[in-house]
């Protein structure tokens, strides 16, 4: 695979009233079909990079090597209020790509149907909900068949319950091989969708890493600090790293469950969980069986060990297969107002746990679980 985009030493500064803002010396490349998330505090330069890539800003120095067009979806969407949803979508294809109106409408209709907005095609944008507007903005960009889609903080203005609909859309696009660069401060989303994460601060790249290394193998103190403070405050988020802490956490958590309750888990990772629990697995399992805690778990594939467990205690294991469109979801469970995200890593990496104590976050994770559960199929 070859890079479709190369950015070399990109520098762009604006003179704002107090200090100079922008980005310095940013370099990265993007492969075809890759999803790159730009993460960092506000003012880090995420939007600046996207605006430069979209050709909306003249760069001070450096190079952007890109052969085709990139289409930019703005943070505030910028739908055209005087045009209906359909007109918003077909204007650019008919004007710029010299596609006939009929053909443009066909493409637009297919996209609208795919993303559940066909009924809204003749509405004006002001009469759509926030989530619908978001999807229309993305569809409008997709209708121009861009080689690269640039999304700037598109979920920032949405209520938590609306975010999922937009995120699911983006996941579908990622699966279909759409190359994307996404600026976001939504870490969970970034870790679910991105192939790589570029962490920026004060206009400079602090780190570019593969997503799986970003959260749990995070050695950079600045990023760790950011991971802990973003969108949630420090008191709400705790990270447990390494085998010892992982095991201690699991055993401690088990005690918080009432007898006979259920543990709803998204995304099993085969036998890795058993590995991570190491010598403490026996103890955990014994206590769990005694308390009669049910594992309601969704997985991509049932491992031999899981199957063995299930057959031994059928009443304590309700396993289901994840819906096909969900690949490698975050592995998590929710207890009351707490979300527990488990990060296993490969055998050569230490596991970690991110614990989020926030009732709104817990609710949104739980509702995502419920949605997936309804779409999943029981393992018999």
């Amino acid at each position, binding site marked *: 695979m070859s890079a479709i985009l190369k950015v070399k030493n990109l520098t762009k500064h604006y003179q704002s009233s107090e200090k100079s803002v922008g980005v310095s010396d940013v370099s990265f490349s993007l492969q075809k079909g890759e999803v790159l998330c730009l993460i960092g505090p506000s003012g880090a330069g995420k939007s600046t990079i996207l605006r430069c890539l*979209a050709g*909306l800003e003249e760069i001070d120095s450096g190079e952007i090597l890109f052969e085709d067009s990139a289409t*930019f979806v703005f943070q*505030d969407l*910028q739908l055209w209020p*005087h045009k209906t949803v359909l007109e918003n979508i077909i*204007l650019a294809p008919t*004007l*710029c790509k010299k596609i006939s109106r009929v053909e443009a409408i066909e493409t637009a209709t297919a996209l609208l149907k795919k993303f559940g907005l066909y009924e809204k095609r003749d509405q004006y944008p002001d009469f759509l909900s926030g989530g619908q507007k978001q999807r229309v903005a993305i569809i409008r960009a997709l209708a121009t068949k861009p080689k690269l889609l640039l999304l700037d903080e598109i979920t920032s203005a949405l209520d938590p319950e609306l975010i999922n609909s937009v995120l699911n859309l983006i996941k579908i696009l990622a699966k279909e091989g759409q190359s994307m660069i996404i600026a976001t401060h939504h870490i969970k989303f970034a870790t679910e969708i991105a192939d790589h994460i570029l962490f920026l601060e004060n206009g400079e790249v602090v780190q570019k890493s593969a997503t799986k290394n970003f959260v749990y193998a995070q050695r950079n103190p600045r990023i760790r600090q950011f991971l802990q403070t973003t969108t949630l405050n420090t008191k709400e988020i705790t990270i447990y790293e390494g085998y010892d802490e992982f095991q201690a956490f699991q055993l401690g958590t088990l005690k918080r469950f009432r007898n006979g309750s259920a543990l709803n888990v998204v995304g099993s990772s085969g036998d890795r969980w058993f590995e991570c629990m190491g010598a403490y697995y026996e103890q955990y399992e014994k206590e769990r069986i005694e308390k009669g805690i049910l594992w309601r778990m969704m997985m991509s594939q049932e491992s031999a060990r899981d199957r063995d467990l299930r057959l031994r205690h059928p009443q304590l294991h309700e396993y289901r297969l994840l819906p096909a469109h969900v690949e490698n979801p975050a592995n998590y469970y929710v207890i009351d107002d707490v979300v527990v995200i488990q990060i296993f890593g490969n055998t050569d990496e230490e596991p970690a746990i991110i614990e989020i104590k926030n009732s709104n976050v817990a609710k949104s994770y739980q509702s995502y679980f419920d949605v997936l559960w309804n779409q999943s199929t029981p393992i018999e």
Partner: protein
Amino acid sequence: MYDWDWNVVLDYKEVFFAGALTTIWLTLFVVVIGTLLGLILGLARRSSILLLPQIARVYVATFRALPILILLIWIYYVVPMVFHIQLSPFYAALLALSINLSAYVAETVRAGIEAIPKNQFDSGITLGLNRTQVMFYIILPQAFRSMLPNLLSLYITQLKNSSLASVIGMNELLHRSNLVISNTYRPLEVYTAVAAIYLAIIIPVTCLAGQWEKRLARKTKNT
């Protein structure tokens, strides 16, 4: 006690009718030419071409400052002396009123465009439209909505301003009415009739304009 005689008005109804038609025609031409010219000037004020914004600015400032009557007389009497071109009263009036209207339209267009967020412009560019397409398909249609009330009131003012053309002998409503007065010596009846005719033209136009604004506003929640 004044003895009203409305037969005068009825006797000359064809004259009034012809005068009203001329007034309407003149106004329509002025509106079309003045708006186009104003649009070009308004766009020129935001152009990046060297000196074009400055020229447009001087034009707008000058012709907004100049009373229409002075402009009209100057075009009708001074232009022929300086340039050796004699304009008919109709063309002189058309030119003067159009120039005046264009200066006001230019300001309205500029303000309307500036009220549209810059990102609306950028959103078109990033989807592949060129600057002209963005202006005509995205910016101007939206700006038009905020410009509309202002434009309509400018147009209605133009209809009234057209009566100034009577001073250079153009055959519009007021001028013809003056001729009727000199034949009949019935100024009160004639001027009352003229007032009624202006009202009969302007009030329906104002109502239609209001309807149009409402229809456009229905597309958005907040306007």
